[in-house]
Structure formats: structure tokens, C-alpha cells
């Protein structure tokens, strides 16, 4: 028995970590190696552990990770579109300011657009009415697609 290592403790170390001193606890490695060199019973324990270590080492080493696995292990990139939207939103002052601004723009746009359309449509209808009355046709206003189709069907019916 060594002053630093008992046979019992040496047996526990070898039983747990095997015969290779590299795997032994760093704090006890030197003492255990000194004990192994000096004690006959230690050699028996080491031989038994060595056989099992050899058995474990017969298992092949798994292949390193493939390039495909390395790629698959990476997180998906943040899309450029989402970050640009976020930047645009930030420029507009965030949702709290952007939403009311968009709503006001929409209302103003619809209002202006409908007035302009109504004016041109009214003027166009008046022109068509005048033309129709001059030509004797009964079309009173600009026909839509469905109306045009109906008129075509009527005119082709004997």
C-alpha cells in the first residue's frame, strides 16, 4: 500500500475507468501509476481491465459528420424580404404609426379615385347617349362585358 493510494481505491479507479492512465482522474493519476508500478495485485487488476478495454476498442470509430449533415445542422437564414419589410416598417415608425397612415391614404385614394372615375364615366355616358339617339340605337350607356355579350347574342338571334 502506498501512502497516497490504497489497493481499494486503485481497484475502484481501474474498475470504473479501465487500464489506461489517460482516463484516470487527473488528481489521482500520478499516485495510481506509482501504485501500479509497485504493487503486484495492481498488475492483476490492470490485466483484467485491459482485456475489456481491448474489447471496447474493437468497435469501429463512427465516420465523421458528412457535409450534408453539417449543412442540415445549420439554422435557416433569415430571409431578405422579411428584414426589408421590417426596415420599411421601422422607417414608417412601426405599426402604431404606419397603420393609421395607411388607412388615411386608402380613404383619400378611394375618394379621389371615385370622384375622378365618376366624372369621366358620366361624361362618357352622355356622349354615348347622344350618339345612340342620333343613330337610333337603344343602347343608353357604356355596356359592360356581360352586357356586350348579351347584346351580341341578341343580335345574332334570328
Amino acid at each position, binding site marked *: 500500500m502506498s501512502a497516497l493510494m490504497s489497493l481499494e481505491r486503485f481497484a475502484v479507479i481501474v474498475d470504473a475507468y479501465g487500464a489506461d492512465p489517460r482516463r484516470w482522474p487527473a488528481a489521482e493519476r500520478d499516485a495510481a501509476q506509482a501504485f501500479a508500478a509497485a504493487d503486484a495485485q495492481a498488475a492483476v487488476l490492470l490485466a483484467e481491465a485491459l482485456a475489456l478495454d481491448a474489447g471496447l476498442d474493437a468497435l469501429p470509430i463512427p465516420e465523421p459528420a458528412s457535409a450534408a449533415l453539417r449543412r442540415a445542422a*445549420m439554422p435557416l437564414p433569415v430571409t431578405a424580404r422579411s428584414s426589408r419589410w421590417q426596415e420599411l416598417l421601422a422607417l414608417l415608425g412601426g405599426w402604431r404609426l404606419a397603420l393609421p397612415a395607411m388607412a388615411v391614404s386608402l380613404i383619400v385614394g378611394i375618394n379621389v379615385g371615385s370622384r375622378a372615375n365618376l366624372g369621366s364615366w358620366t361624361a362618357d355616358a352622355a356622349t354615348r347617349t347622344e350618339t345612340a339617339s342620333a343613330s337610333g340605337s337603344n343602347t343608353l350607356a357604356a355596356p359592360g362585358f356581360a352586357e356586350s355579350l348579351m347584346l351580341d347574342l341578341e343580335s345574332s338571334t334570328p
Partner: protein
Amino acid sequence: MANYAIGFAVCTEWPEGRSTVQSAPMMALLSPPAFDDADLADVVLAGAGDRLAFARIVGRNIDALIRFAERMLGSRAEAEDVVQDVFLRAWKQTANWRSGEARFSTWLHRVAMSRCIDRVRGRRETSLDDMSLLVSSDPPPDHGLHQQSVAQRVQLALAGLAERQRAAVILCHYEEMTNIEAAATLEISVDALESLLARGRRALRAALLPERQALIGDLT
């Protein structure tokens, strides 16, 4: 040490999501680790969204994780699934990482071990005694027939161990982790680790008794 906030040792399951703790990278810098962690600087950068830093973490750890998972499961395909899952979780975790309790690589191994044990238990529910599932069907071509046979028996013997005994043997024997790192991965004391290892190795010795002479003959 006590002010390192959430202890790694008490958090087996981490909260999902990356944005809950915005100041985590700064806290990681302010908390000096008690040991060298090769991943720490990149964990801080990855926590702020740096994918290149995360790629370096993947590069440093993926081979060890795939070896560990394949030996735990005996299946390459399942090991790859586990590794992908571990890194997906790791990407979410980097923003919340608190240094000081353990290396990031130790945490990665812990997550991998947990996923492997879940899979092994899932198989057991499917088939209580089909140990062949744990033995890889594709031994490498450069091994002789006898060596293949020994390797398969060793793998079968490993597969017959309780999951935590198997994990302890793989971490200490194959991955050559220190006893402190292995104990941290398993969330147990060093004494408990030694007990797990001793029971595991005794069971392996009993299972491989018929191969003993062949092994000694081959390897001496």
C-alpha cells in the same frame, strides 16, 4: 458563482425561443467562466444572430456528437436526426446561454444524451426484446470478418447496458471526457459516475466473457 443566474445544472429543459432575454450575450460576457470554454465567444455572437459563429460551434462539436449518438443508438440515420435536433435546439439556446456552470459542448452532449435515451425508450415500447435494432447492420468494409463479429458482439453488449451506464462508458472510454465533464453531462456527482461506470464495465465484462480469449489473442 451564485449570481450566474439560471444554473446549467438545474435546467434540463430550456425555454424555447431566442428573444426572451435580450441582454443574455452581455451577461455571458460579464460572467467569467470557471473554466475554458472554446465555444463561449461564438455562443455570444450566435446569440446575437451571427450564423457564421454558429457554424464554428457546429464545426467544433458535430463529430463528437455524431460519434456519441451513433454509439448510443447503433444507427447512423437516427444519430443524424438526433444531431440535427441538438443543433436546432442549440441555435435557440445561444441567446439565453449563461456561462459559468458548464461548457457549451457539455450541454450539447447532455441534450444529445437525452434525445438518444428518448429514442431507445421509444424503441423498447415498440419491441421489448429486439436488441438487434441497436446493432448497426453496416460494419465498415476495412474490418476482417472476425473483427466484424467481435465488433458486433461488443455493440450488442453495449446495447444491453442501461442507458445511463452506456452513456457513461461512451463518454469516458470513447470520447475520453474527464470524469468531471462526464459527471456534468450526466448531471451526477463524480462518485455516482464511478459507480455507473463500474457497473457498466462489469456487465460488459460478463457479456463479453466468451470473446475474451479472442480479443486478447487479436490485440496482444
